[in-house]
């Protein structure tokens, strides 16, 4: 679907993409990177809108440098920023964008009605977009990217600004774009956690460089962090510490949840699969503690690539701040090691 070869984009002051080579097949692919990693820049190059400084890229077998028009006819694009005029209805807007993609008037109207229904907009679609919630606007943006039935869509941060429920709905919708509509997806985010459940394949870039490209099953096994919170009991006045010690006896490394008030009662550990959940549940029961919560943590992408020492020292809040990412070689070694252990 997408292939790049030593693709670079240099702006006067920054190198947005640095000799990026990758190969993306059909399915849902996540493009993950921190702010400024070069995600949007890559999409613009793939749409043939911005010339690469160096290297080559092909989308659907078409060279981006020479066949931009043909690519854009077969590809959909949902930008990260707002792009909707508030004074027209979703229907009018999407019909117009369908015609801009070359659909004849009747087909444009029919497909607009279909597509808006598929993204979950019903009666609202006749009202001006200005009155829509952020979630509804994101759906309109998605609809305009799908209305001409592209073979591939680029979705730039589609979950931006959505609350957790809206986020899950959007991710579900993105999954359906591939499974039900048969359209391949390249979706960007700075959260690995939300993409690993949606994507078949994840590409991680940082500072314009490729950090890693692999199927999500690989990722999930390495990266799942469990956050566990327990009550205290008479026998164990400090339930959290008791649980940590019990886990350590079983050879499980743990971290505290941070320094925020109350966060010290959270135990973080790496889940290796179903067994870990069972183990925690059993230990908590054996200790006679109450289980307040046990959930999968969403990670900031940089967290995945912390080296071992840093991981022990780092506190989870630091993951939400930009964390220096080690050189690709170090990351590769570490992830490689992770696989060998299993």
């Amino acid at each position: 679907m997408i292939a790049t070869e030593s693709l670079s984009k240099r702006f006067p002051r920054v190198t947005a993409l640095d000799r990026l080579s990758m190969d993306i097949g059909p399915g849902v692919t996540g493009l993950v990177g921190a702010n400024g990693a070069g995600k949007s820049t890559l999409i613009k190059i793939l749409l043939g809108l911005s010339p690469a400084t160096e290297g080559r890229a092909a989308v659907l077998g078409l060279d981006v440098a020479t066949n931009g028009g043909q690519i854009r006819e077969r590809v959909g694009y949902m930008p990260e920023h707002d792009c909707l005029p508030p004074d027209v209805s979703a229907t009018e807007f999407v019909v117009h964008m369908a015609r801009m993609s070359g659909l004849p008037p009747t087909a444009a109207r029919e497909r607009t009605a279909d597509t808006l229904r598929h993204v979950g907009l019903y009666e609202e679609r006749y009202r001006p977009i200005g009155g829509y919630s952020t979630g509804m606007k994101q759906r309109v943006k998605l609809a305009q990217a799908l209305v001409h039935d592209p073979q591939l869509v680029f979705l730039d941060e589609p979950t931006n600004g959505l609350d957790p429920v809206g986020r899950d709905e959007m991710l579900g919708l993105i999954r359906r774009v591939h499974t039900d509509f048969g359209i391949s997806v390249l979706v960007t985010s700075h959260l690995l956690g939300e993409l690993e459940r949606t994507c078949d394949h994840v590409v991680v870039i940082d500072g314009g460089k490729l950090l890693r490209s692999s199927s999500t099953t690989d990722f999930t096994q390495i990266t799942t962090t469990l956050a566990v919170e327990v009550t205290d009991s008479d026998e164990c006045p400090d339930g959290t510490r008791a649980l940590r010690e019990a886990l350590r006896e079983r050879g499980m490394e743990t971290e505290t949840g941070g320094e925020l008030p109350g966060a010290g009662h959270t135990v973080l550990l790496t889940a290796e699969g179903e067994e870990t959940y069972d183990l925690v549940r059993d230990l908590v029961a054996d200790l006679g503690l109450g289980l307040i919560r046990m959930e999968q943590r969403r990670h900031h992408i940089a967290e995945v690539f912390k080296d071992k020492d840093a991981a022990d020292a780092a506190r989870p809040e630091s993951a939400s701040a930009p964390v220096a990412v080690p050189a690709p070689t170090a990351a590769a070694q570490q992830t490689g090691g992770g696989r060998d252990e299993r």
Partner: protein
Amino acid sequence: MSVESTQIHNIGYRDYEGPRLGRAYARRSLFSQSLRGAYGLGRSAKSKVLPMILFAVMCLPAAIMVAVAVATKTKDLPVDYTRYAIVMQALISLFLAAQAPQTVSRDLRFKTVPLYFSRPIERGDYVLAKFAAMTSALFVLTAAPLLVLYVGALLAKLDFLDQTEGFGQGLVSVALLSLLFSGIALVISAITPRRGFGIAAVIAVLTITYGAVSTVQAIAYEQGSTDAIAWLGLFSPITLIDGVQTAFLGATSAFPGGDGPSSGVGVVYVLVVLGLIAGCYGALMRRYRKVGLS
């Protein structure tokens, strides 16, 4: 299959196997959408009010003149075809000030432009479609009253050849005016995406240049420097059109003293007008080069 039936049965996703009409079709669609939009068609009822009123007011004097001409059986229309737009220039400015910002600024303000460029059309197509749409909208506004005059003149049995020549010259003149004024108004609107500013800036540029030029021309006339009058006319859009049509389209000039530029100076007028139109097109292309990448 109709839209309603798909809603009732809620069938799954359907692939689109129909034709994709490509870039030229998209450009045409953008043109017609923008042209209709300039008269509020396909938009809310509220946005139809102003352009429609302006259109009616633009044609009203022509209709009255025609009625008078038919009733009184005069030998000539009270106003030349080429003079009509000059007399009605305030209305033309008002129409442009209201509609040029809505034609280009909305897409810039709401960042819709990058969406267009994610489609097969390119920057040049977008600029061309918008420029052509604004020009056509203005041409409709300025040519319609001329048509009213012409039809009226024929009904009043005025000299056919005479009237046809005048009508033809008038059409050429308003076509040139439409190109020039649209270009200027679109450039101003494209660099001032805030709607209010765009309206004010278009009005200001069109009226202030005309006010300044005609004032200085009047002073030059008082002082008897008639040569200067013709050269001064190069500095505002409406006097440029006046100069071109006086030199080449058989019009009588509205300049003080009624002396427009000679044919020699007239060539300069034509070159300046064409240069300005090309310059506006170039400026728009430049403007959208930046937007496309943002």
